[in-house]
């Protein structure tokens, strides 16, 4: 593994569990022919099943995957943890439950198949009475199909349904043997996709007064996932629901007093103290560290290449020069031959060279000559800058009358050249003057600074502030202008309207025959800068440059002015709160960037149980539901129930739930009523245990629906008893 993380509360995500042991089915001998009741807790997350006489159930996540394995191209049917072993299987995973409703009977059939195979059943029918769970007031469709499966496919002799939370309550309040079950209490059941409250009086669970909130552990972990994705939009790896439910189960807790907690967490230090950091796996990019010698070698190579290129260029130039010389020589020869040969032949020769007449020949010769001379000069004085010596313009002074046409042209040319030369000289002198001025200024400033550091620093700082304020004001103005109703925007519209108005000229001037004198005064044009909202950039650039210059000076000389005071850092400053909420890491710190900091979310997510509207679910929270449920009972009954408030279900394992429920219930009850909140001893397995306890009694046969009754009534009708649903239940 890797090194110890520097911060104390960094938690690594759990490594994927080792592949589960392949289960071999149990022996059936023990139960063959004995009719031991089968107890199946059909949960939305886990399936628990077993013989009623066994102490522990078999458990497995309630998922099925049926897919074709790629290696041997064989179809494969997997259940539970086996689905995790193959990623292809995970993609094909199906669960019988869709949220809170049993819908996928294919999957249920396969899950039950697995359960029975594991139990070792080999008879042509499942010859055991079955006790199964269903949801609180389960939809009749689900119940009908489950009954159909059990009776027709598996041929069970009898089937009974119960509600898991009530059985968990039963297990924790077992009556002494041979006594009636008459416990009272308020059962709060935390399930995967719902949370329900069931009142129990005298052993009877009052299903008609029960209520269900459509918010459970799966929705909470989805909410946590959404929050993490919002907080870390550019997170390097994908966060999955499995990981977020792990985080929910291990890092989140209920706050006893949520508003007080939020007020405490306002302080960034508290925020930091309460955070948990989850480190996600990351890959360190392989950086090939080139050693010193390698670097040197590469530099050498590059230099050599550069030199080679230079040499090649020089060679090319020489070649071209040589070529030009040859050409020049040829042309000169040609010119000499003119004297020797007669005109016609000479013209023919000229045409061969591509020249029209003698003048062209002369011009070409002159051009080549000039190029050659320039090139030679360049080579001779390669690195020196050519000092511009004073060229002479002799013809400028000669009056026009004395010159002929060509002379005039020459004169014009020379005049232009002279003007250019003089302008350049002037510019050079001005530049020098400016440089001297600037140097003088800087010298003065340095003297001032050396004389009195603080005063100089203060002066500069004031300028700095003024500039920053100006920029802020401009930014504010920009925002204001974008808002249609602001005063600035309306003023702008007024000026536009004014400019475009026909009767722009004031009356007095018109009488005196005046026209619109806009523009005579240069300041008038400034109004266009005001109107044009997009053109502020040049101003900003100037300001920024000025600001930068001042900052440089201050940074260099003023000990109190640090990089923190510069404009850039002020802009990018995040408040302490935000940095505590979501600390930023450097660009290259991949380990840091793969971390998720959970601070407020640790309490925010469980708070949704008490206020689902935080997450967009329009439903009453747990506190309100408790109030509603209890409002329908008399005070005496209330008193009996609240002495035994029972928390059932795996999600109730989140810490802090018990005190929270206590605090929620205490204010709505009369102060003298004793209130006690108890969790189940084993939140996940107690429901199954309660069912097993019940199945061992003789009562099971009384409340089950037998095969014959099923065939008569259909799958939806059940018998009404203290642990089962009431919808479509006939009293025994």
């Amino acid at each position, binding site marked *: 593994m890797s090194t110890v993380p520097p911060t104390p509360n960094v938690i690594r995500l759990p490594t994927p569990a080792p592949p589960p042991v392949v289960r071999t089915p149990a022996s059936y001998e023990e139960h063959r022919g004995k009719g031991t009741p089968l107890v199946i807790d059909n949960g939305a997350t886990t399936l628990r099943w077993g013989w009623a006489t066994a102490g522990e159930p078999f458990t497995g996540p309630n998922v099925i995957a049926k897919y074709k394995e790629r290696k041997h191209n064989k179809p494969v049917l997997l259940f539970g943890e086996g689905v995790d072993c193959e990623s292809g299987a995970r993609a094909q995973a199906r669960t019988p439950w869709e949220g809170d409703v049993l819908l996928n009977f294919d999957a249920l059939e396969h899950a039950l198949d697995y359960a029975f195979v594991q139990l070792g059943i*080999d008879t042509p029918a499942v010859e055991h009475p079955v006790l199964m769970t269903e949801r609180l007031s389960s939809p009749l469709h689900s119940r009908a199909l489950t009954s159909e499966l059990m009776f*027709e496919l598996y041929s069970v002799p009898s089937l009974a349904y119960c509600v898991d939370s009530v059985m968990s309550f039963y297990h924790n309040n077992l009556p002494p043997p041979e006594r009636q079950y008459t416990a009272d209490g308020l059962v709060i059941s935390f399930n995967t996709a719902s949370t329900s409250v069931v009142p129990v009086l005298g052993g009877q669970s009052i299903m008609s007064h029960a209520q269900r909130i459509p918010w459970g552990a799966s929705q909470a972990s989805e909410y946590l996932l959404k929050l993490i994705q919002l907080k870390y939009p550019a997170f390097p790896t994908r966060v999955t629901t499995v990981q977020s439910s792990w985080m929910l189960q291990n890092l989140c807790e209920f706050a006893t007093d949520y508003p007080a907690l939020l007020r405490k967490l306002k302080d960034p230090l508290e925020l930091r103290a309460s955070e948990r950091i989850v480190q996600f796996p990351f890959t360190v990019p392989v950086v090939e560290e080139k050693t010193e010698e390698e670097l040197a070698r590469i530099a050498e190579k590059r230099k050599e290449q550069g030199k080679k290129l230079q040499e090649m260029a020089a060679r090319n130039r020489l070649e071209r020069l040589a070529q030009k010389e040859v050409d020049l020589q040829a042309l000169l020869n040609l010119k000499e031959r003119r004297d020797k040969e007669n005109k016609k032949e000479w013209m023919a020769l000229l045409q061969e060279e591509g020249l029209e007449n003698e003048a062209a020949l002369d011009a070409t010769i002159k051009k080549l000559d000039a190029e050659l001379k320039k090139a030679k000069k360049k080579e001779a004085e390669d690195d020196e800058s050519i000092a511009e010596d004073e060229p002479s313009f002799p013809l400028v002074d000669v009056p026009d009358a004395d010159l002929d046409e060509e002379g005039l042209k020459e004169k014009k040319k020379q005049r232009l050249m002279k003007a250019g030369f003089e302008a350049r000289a002037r510019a050079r002198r001005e530049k020098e003057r400016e440089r001297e001025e600037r140097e003088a200024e800087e010298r003065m400033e340095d003297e001032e600074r050396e004389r009195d550091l603080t005063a100089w620093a203060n002066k500069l700082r004031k300028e700095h502030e003024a500039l920053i304020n100006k920029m802020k004001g401009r930014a504010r103005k920009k925002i204001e202008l974008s808002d249609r109703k602001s005063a600035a925007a309306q003023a702008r519209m007024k000026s536009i309207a004014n400019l475009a108005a026909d009767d722009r000229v004031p009356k007095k001037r018109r009488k005196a025959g005046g026209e619109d004198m806009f523009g005579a005064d240069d300041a008038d044009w400034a109004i266009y800068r005001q109107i044009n909202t997009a053109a502020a950039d040049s101003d900003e650039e100037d300001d920024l440059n000025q600001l930068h210059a001042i900052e440089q000076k201050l940074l260099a000389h003023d000990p109190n002015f640090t990089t923190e005071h510069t404009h850039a850092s002020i802009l990018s400053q995040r408040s302490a709160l935000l940095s505590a909420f979501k600390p930023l890491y450097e660009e290259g710190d991949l380990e840091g960037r793969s971390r998720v900091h959970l601070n407020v979310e640790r309490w925010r997510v469980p708070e949704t149980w008490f206020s689902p509207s935080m*997450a967009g679910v329009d439903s009453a929270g747990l506190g309100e539901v408790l109030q509603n449920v209890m409002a329908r009972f008399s005070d005496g009954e209330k008193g009996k129930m609240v002495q035994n408030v029972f928390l059932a279900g795996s999600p109730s394992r989140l810490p802090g739930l018990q005190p929270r429920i206590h605090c929620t219930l205490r204010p709505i009850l009369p102060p003298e009523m004793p209130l006690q909140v108890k969790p189940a001893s084993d939140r996940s397995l107690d429901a199954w245990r309660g069912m097993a306890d019940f199945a061992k009694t003789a009562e099971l046969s009384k409340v089950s629906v037998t095969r014959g009754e099923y065939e008569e009534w259909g799958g939806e009708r059940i018998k009404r008893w203290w642990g089962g649903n009431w919808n479509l239940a006939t009293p025994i």
Partner: protein
Amino acid sequence: MPPKGSGKRKLGSTDGSATPQGPTLAEQYSYLHAPRPFKNPNYSKNVNRRARVLKNVLTQERERERLERDRRRQEKEEAMEVDEEAKDGVVEDDMPFYTSIEAPPSVLPQKRYCDITGLEAPYTEPATGLRYHDKSVYELIKGLSVSAAKDYLAARGVNPIVK
């Protein structure tokens, strides 16, 4: 060990003609070929029955609930007619159905929480509707893109309709 009458109860479907790698993990877990004698071969799942969609199931529940309630009301009326005096005492509760059990919407006043940090949020940003905790969070919100702002709102359940 295996009881009589049972075939090989191995969980895996190991290839008889052994491929050199042996059965993969998935095959070891697979119980596709495990004998399942307890299943009734005569039962043919109603092939025409399509897996019902959740929405339809819930609608059907609501229908049943309504029917049941009407029926009960009728019964009560008839019973009232028979005995002229009102029945005293036993008022049978309404039968609970899956949809009737659901908790009603909340009537308590909702606390406002910051969409970004989760702390208390006394302020709302007018342009996007996001709630925020203080100035610094406001600066952050101003810098959010439109889609990011919509995502935050969606987490709260507010889905602004885009025209």
